[in-house]
């Protein structure tokens, strides 16, 4: 049986129609579109509903809204608005630690524990009071669940076996937190400002727990905190809706809800903010920002970010890449200024040390600049001839842009960079397995303390821990000792000096080339007031926003 034998070869008797006439029409159509594109728009602008803040951004990265698990930009930025921690970093100066759910704290004489006094009268959004049990539940479950950010709490020496002894109830409003790691109370406080140290409502979560998951499955898309907002709806890849928590201990927010809308395309995000269909747009490219700067109705907020971008060299890839002369030459083959000013226009500054500006002890000097002749000489002296270098790069802005600039400048010294774009996990996997030659990476501190960066770049005794130094195949027992000494140091001035010394050494000679420090550009509608964003990536605050 056959229904139709030849639809795809339907008889076509009018092949002789004037093809040129057709083409003419097509061209006319195209030019009409083009002309209309150029026409200035004039109709009334849209507006978002009153009391509702609409944020256009990509939320595709979100994995879990459980503070013990979430470790992506979207989720950590939400935790500050939904949960509180015992202590928090100051919004403007992250190095200052302020009370949050703890009204005050007292270090023990031996410097190995802290006793916190809970803020009187603090309640969760559910109405339950904040108790020492909630603190114990929150911190112990985070360690026992052992999800992505758990390593932050592990820095205190906590493990699933000992955390129950480390976090203990003193009385109805006091909780004691002790640690076995060789670190001081200042460092412990910094750790407790991390999103994973958020305090969840034990009484609300426990009934939702199943199979020993401490409520993890439920908390992935629900909230049980004391922050200014609560999660009302979460539709993955679509939107996150937060509603005001009128009884928030930090004061009720001025908005009644916040909607994070997933708009994956940055051009579409720009349209939405320009048209007034969004109040805030995040993650726009520098050219889009530059174009919006002249527009009426929007303003661009530039927020320094703690993100540093660096070139990572795999010293084990081959003899050339293991040669410190190559590391040195690479430092002169980067058009730092051109990338920062022209390519990324305002979204990054030249920065050449592992601590970002804003962290105590960060080096601000920039000893390296593009100098092809010098690089050539260094390479020639080391007898490094023309070679091709595999260069896996994140398949997204700005990394691909930076990579192409490097490709152009390295080529001038006879070094061919073979850019291999890939998704993040692919690039990470290559880093872990040492299956790369050089790669472009970024680092965002996990908590507000220099050790977060130092432990990544300056610790690798025997390739046993997954640090950036290990991924570079760079074994540095001496620097590791210095890093361990720095985190132990109790005197702030001395500690700062230790980190400065570490940075100088790594700046001069290491398989890393630090290039840039990021700067976030957030676009806001003109009428918006009270939006705050801090240096670290999680520090996004909607509670004071007014329209």
């Amino acid at each position, binding site marked *: 049986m*056959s229904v139709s*034998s*030849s639809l*795809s*070869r339907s*008889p*076509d*008797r009018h*092949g*002789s*129609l*004037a*093809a*040129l006439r*057709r*083409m003419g029409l*097509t061209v006319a159509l*195209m030019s009409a579109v*083009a002309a209309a*594109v*150029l026409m200035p728009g004039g109709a009334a602008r849209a507006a978002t509903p009153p009391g509702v803040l609409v944020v256009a951004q990509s939320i595709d990265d979100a994995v879990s809204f459980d503070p013990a698990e979430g470790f992506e930009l979207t989720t950590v930025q939400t935790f500050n608005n939904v949960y509180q921690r015992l202590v928090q970093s100051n919004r403007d100066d992250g190095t200052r630690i302020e009370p949050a759910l703890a009204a005050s704290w007292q270090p023990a004489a031996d410097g190995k524990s802290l006793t916190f006094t809970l803020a009187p009268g603090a309640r969760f959004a559910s109405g339950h009071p904040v108790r020492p049990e909630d603190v114990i539940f929150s911190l112990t479950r985070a360690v026992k669940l052992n999800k992505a950010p758990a390593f932050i709490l592990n820095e205190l020496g906590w493990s699933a076996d000992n955390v129950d002894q480390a976090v203990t109830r003193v009385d109805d409003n006091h909780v004691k937190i002790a640690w076995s790691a060789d670190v001081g109370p200042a460092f412990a406080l910094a750790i407790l400002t991390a999103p994973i140290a958020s305090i969840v409502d034990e009484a609300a979560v426990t009934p939702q727990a199943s199979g020993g998951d401490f409520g993890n499955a439920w908390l992935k898309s629900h909230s049980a905190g004391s922050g200014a907002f609560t999660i009302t709806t979460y539709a993955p890849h679509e939107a996150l809706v937060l509603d005001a928590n009128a009884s928030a201990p930090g004061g009720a927010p001025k908005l009644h809800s916040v909607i994070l809308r997933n708009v994956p*395309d*940055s*051009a579409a995000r*720009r*349209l939405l903010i320009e048209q007034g269909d969004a109040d805030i747009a995040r993650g*726009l*490219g520098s*050219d*889009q920002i530059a*174009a919006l700067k002249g527009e009426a109705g929007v303003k661009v907020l530039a927020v320094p970010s703690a993100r540093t971008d660096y070139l990572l060299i795999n010293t084990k890839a081959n003899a050339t890449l293991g040669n410190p002369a190559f590391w040195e030459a690479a430092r002169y083959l980067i*058009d730092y200024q*051109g*990338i920062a000013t*022209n*390519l990324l226009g305002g979204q990054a500054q030249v920065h050449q040390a592992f601590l970002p500006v804003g962290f105590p002890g960060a080096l601000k000097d920039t000893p390296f600049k593009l100098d092809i002749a010098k690089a050539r000489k260094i390479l020639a002296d080391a007898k490094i001839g023309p070679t091709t270098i595999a260069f896996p790069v994140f*398949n*997204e*802005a700005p990394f*691909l*842009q930076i*990579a*192409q*600039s490097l*490709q*152009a400048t390295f080529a001038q010294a006879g070094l061919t960079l*073979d*850019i*291999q*774009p*890939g*998704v993040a996990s692919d690039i990470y996997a290559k880093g872990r397995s040492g299956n790369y030659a050089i790669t472009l990476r970024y680092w965002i501190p996990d908590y507000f303390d220099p050790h977060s960066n130092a432990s990544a770049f300056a610790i690798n005794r025997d390739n046993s821990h997954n640090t950036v130094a290990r991924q570079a195949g760079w074994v540095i027992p001496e620097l590791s000792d210095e890093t361990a000494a720095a985190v132990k140091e109790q005197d702030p001035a001395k500690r700062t000096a230790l980190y400065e010394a570490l940075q100088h050494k790594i700046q001069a000679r290491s398989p890393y080339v630090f290039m840039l420090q990021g700067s976030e550009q957030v676009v806001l509608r003109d009428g918006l007031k009270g939006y705050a964003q801090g240096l670290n990536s999680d520090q996004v605050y909607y509670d004071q926003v007014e329209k």
Partner: protein
Amino acid sequence: MMATMPTAPSPGLARLMRSPAALFGLGMIGLMIVVAVLAPVLAPFDPNLQDIANRLARPSAQHWLGTDGFGRDQVSRLFYGVRPTLLLVILVAALMAPLGVAVGVVAGYCGGLVERALMRVTDIVMSFPRLLLAFAFVAILGPGLINGGLALALTSWPAYARQARVETVALRDHDYLAAAEMVGIRGWRLIVGHVLPLVLPSTIIRLALDLAGIILAAAGLGFLGLGVRPPTAEWGSMVADGTPVIFDEWWLTAAPGCAIFLASLAFNLLADGLRDVLDPRHD
């Protein structure tokens, strides 16, 4: 049932020449080949020469279509962009059609279990979300021209297999093959010498029609960052590069978009003409 008997190709060629649509398509494809070959001569600049102090320049006498986000001359990149497009088309055509036809002819000729097994595989591949599967392949193999071509070919062959099988089955039942078998032509000789030539015309039409789609799919891959590796100029990735600034430097998106459109149109026009010529029902 299918009873397509091919016509001899030579008078068809003459008819192809009389079809303005096909001629126009053929002309545009010829032009693309010329541009691809002569790109170094035609292009006013090195397509990969960066000048980031002069990025996103407006069109001028020096840069007719302005410069892109790296200060590279857009016209030069547009010219060089023909190369990966044509290479990909050739690569896909050379892989997809032979693979599909081979599967289809073998299935149709052998019949029985072989046919059932081969066609079952074909059905399975056919019911995949094809573009997504191609994305997945590229994600596995890594971006690049060859990988993109492989991905598109690996996901697009079933249509050829089905068509070739149906036509082979029709031939198998036909006296024509029985006659050939009677004079002792069997097995591979029969397939290559007598089945294949009869299956080819419809394959060529389909191929011409498909190539337009391949160009679009390749551009889609480039648009999603799964196409050729930087810094190679490729139209789909040029559209993607221009997208963030589409409201201000719209020509950066419009020009490669138009190029994709015209290239695809050229193949569609040629396909139309070929169908006029090769489809026997016109007589």
